[in-house]
């Protein structure tokens, strides 16, 4: 009989086996044996969050910026319930997270014990899979399998719930070469050449093509982004991206139409509406993208490439479905394309020249334009300046949720994958600050900025304390308009300007708040001081809260109003029948 090891030790052995370097967590009664064991494993660094939701978003930021799974460790009961928002967020945005939760001892399960909750029951709908480990002999294989499930196929969160007695219990059983069932969703079939040829045939026939790419390209790894760029240069087709796909293709490239969707550009949305061939690569026809489903891109043939079979045909019927990892799809497509269609780019130019003229016409609208001011800072201007002043660095951007998020997506131009971390599917206010913590942990020498709103950032502000503790010089760039801006915008457009509860009175003094946390506070109120202060922020090697006081009345345009198809966008306040003329002035 070999040496006996405890459940807690097994947890760390699997983490070591999986080369985990950082875990984000918060201790508590039911997880103490694991915390006790932490000291014996020097290669694993624990980052103490201030709230389990913060630990979860930090793990997400870590995962999305590094491509490695994020690991979080929480206690039973409230520890687990606090993690639920982050797990759901990761589930919606396909982020690989392994959450380890403590549970009350086995003999107390079901007795409403102190800090007991049905963790696997609560997290079942917001994880890819979860396990309650009732036998220490199962622990190693469950933990190991958890990593496989989280990272295979379409990535996502998993949870392993470990009762306290199991953490103490000893066994000599570690990982044996036990074969467990391959996780569902792991691809078993290869892409066929005939599918690839079909794609190429459809591309040849098209005179109005568009690539519509999403987070699947990012999730597939940096190589996929390279191949995507190659594909665009091989074909000369225009490309647009979802919110989650930004960075897979350079944002400042002339082939790029900008983001599409509810707050996407005029040219991207019109191209989606009028195209005759839509090639969806790793996006999921989300409702923020499609708008009115039955008027969505009515004249196009649609190709959908996705690693998740259930994403195909869920919202939009497609003509050609390919279940594949994006990198391997693009690899096969590009190779076949190069082998058989050497002169496509030149020979096809005339075929799509009319299409590019249409696109240029749409571009003339300059749909991201806004009226700048020299009196107040316009939020779009603030993002543009932030971009101009940080683009020379390899900058990582996270956001909260709301108007500032859309302005960041519109005006910050990304040219590398894994540089843009935002909560798209779940739309979690309070995501950006803890995510920035995780991003900075994974990328210690890089510039990490959370473009935030003052309402969102207050939801997880406590994580500034984490940033200070670990010397993580994150920059919290708050576009402070004193409103829940997107709520206010919807109330203006849909609820007759009844700004019910969307104004935050009694906001804190963010500069003093920063100082209270032990970081640096900066405030900018006038457009002419903005550049200097942004430069100052970037130069400081400490966490910074930047209070950028912006025009409280600005709305986020362009937008597709509710129930309208893509070609009926609102371009600005003067462009609209729904915003009545009375009450341009807000409360």
């Amino acid at each position, binding site marked *: 009989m070999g040496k006996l090891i405890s459940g807690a030790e097994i947890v760390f052995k699997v983490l070591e086996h999986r080369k985990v370097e950082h875990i984000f967590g918060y201790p508590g009664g039911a997880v103490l044996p694991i915390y006790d064991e932490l000291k014996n494993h020097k290669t694993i660094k624990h980052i103490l969050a201030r709230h389990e939701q913060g630990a979860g978003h930090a793990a997400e930021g870590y995962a999305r910026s590094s491509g490695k799974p994020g690991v979080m460790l929480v206690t039973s009961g409230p520890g687990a319930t606090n993690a639920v928002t982050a797990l759901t967020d990761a589930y919606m945005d396909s982020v690989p997270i392994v959450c380890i939760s403590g549970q009350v001892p086995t003999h107390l399960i079901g007795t409403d014990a102190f800090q007991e909750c049905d963790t*696997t*029951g609560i997290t*079942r*709908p917001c994880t*890819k*899979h979860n396990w*309650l480990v*009732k036998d220490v002999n199962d622990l190693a294989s469950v933990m190991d399998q958890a990593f496989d*499930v989280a990272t295979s196929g379409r990535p996502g969160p998993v949870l392993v719930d470990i009762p306290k007695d199991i953490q103490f219990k000893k066994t000599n059983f570690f990982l044996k070469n036990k074969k467990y*069932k391959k*996780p*569902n*969703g792991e691809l078993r079939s290869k892409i066929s050449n005939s599918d690839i040829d079909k794609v190429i045939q459809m591309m040849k026939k098209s005179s109005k093509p568009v690539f519509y790419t999403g987070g699947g390209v990012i999730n597939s790894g940096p190589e996929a982004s390279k191949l995507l760029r190659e594909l665009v240069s091989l074909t000369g087709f225009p490309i647009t991206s979802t919110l989650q796909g930004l960075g897979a293709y350079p944002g400042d490239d002339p082939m790029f139409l900008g983001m599409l969707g509810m707050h996407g550009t005029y040219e991207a949305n019109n191209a989606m509406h009028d195209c005759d061939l839509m090639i969806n690569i790793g996006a999921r026809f989300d*409702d923020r993208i*499609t*708008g*009115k*489903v*039955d008027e969505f891109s009515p004249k196009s043939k649609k190709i959908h490439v996705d690693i*998740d*079979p*259930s994403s195909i*045909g*869920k919202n939009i*019927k497609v003509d050609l479905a390919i279940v594949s990892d994006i990198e391997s799809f693009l690899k096969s497509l590009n190779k076949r394309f190069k082998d058989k269609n050497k002169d496509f780019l030149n020979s096809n130019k005339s075929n799509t020249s009319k299409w590019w003229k249409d696109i240029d016409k749409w571009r003339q609208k300059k749909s991201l334009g806004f009226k700048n001011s020299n009196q107040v800072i316009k939020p779009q201007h603030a993002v543009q300046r932030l971009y101009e002043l940080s683009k020379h660095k390899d900058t990582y951007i996270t956001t909260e949720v709301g108007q500032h998020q859309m302005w960041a997506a519109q005006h910050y131009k990304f040219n590398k994958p894994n540089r843009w971390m935002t909560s798209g599917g779940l739309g979690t206010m309070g995501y950006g600050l803890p995510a920035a913590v995780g991003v900075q942990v994974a990328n210690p020498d890089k510039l990490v900025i959370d473009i935030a709103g003052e309402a969102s950032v207050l939801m997880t502000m406590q994580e500034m304390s984490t940033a200070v503790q670990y010397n993580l010089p994150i920059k919290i760039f708050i576009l402070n308009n004193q409103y829940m801006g997107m709520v206010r915008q*919807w109330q203006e*457009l*849909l*609820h007759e300007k009844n700004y019910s509860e969307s104004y935050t009175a009694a906001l804190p003094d963010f500069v003093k708040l920063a100082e209270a946390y032990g970081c640096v506070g900066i405030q900018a109120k006038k457009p002419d001081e903005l550049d200097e202060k942004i430069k100052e922020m970037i130069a400081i090697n400490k966490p910074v809260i930047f209070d950028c006081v912006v025009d409280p009345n600005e709305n986020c345009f362009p937008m597709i109003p*509710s*129930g309208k198809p893509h070609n009926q966008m609102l371009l600005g306040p003067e462009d609209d029948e729904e915003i009545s003329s009375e009450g341009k002035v807000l409360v």
Partner: protein
Amino acid sequence: MKAPKSAYSAAIKTGKVEKHIMVIWVDNEAGVLARVVGLFSGRGYNIESLAVAEIDKKQKLSRITLVTSGSPEVISQIKKQLEKLVPVHKVADFMRNDPKIIFRDMALLKVISNEKKRSKAKKLCKKFDPVVLDKSNKSIVIQVTALRREIDKLVNDLKPLGLASVSRTGAVAMTRGAEIFK
């Protein structure tokens, strides 16, 4: 009427609702049924009936037979979503009226009445392979196997004859002939 303004798009017309039988092979482990049933409630799918039991002790495999209804798009989503669950091995999907498939429900029927009515009740059950499982001088318990709608009708017909208690299983299904679902 003008549709209310909303941040979400309005519902659109869906395809014709069909009835389907899903047969799902799963690992017989704690919580597996909750995962399957939770998927249906969470995504707003229907469950008309459900039958589940272990079919292979050694491999710890259970077989779930589930009757559901939905538009063709919904049915295809149900199948794809089920196939993503970790303990699911395979999913078979049959149209309710597929001639290649056999379906059976089982029911236990307790009739409490006089002898004349009881024997009349037995007669009514004759078509459905009745087995008398219990008898007393006041009552009889009959087991029948039949299709759901046949049992529905039978239950109705037995009511005047003193039907006091009904216990039914959900449908179970199997392919005809030598073929098995891989």
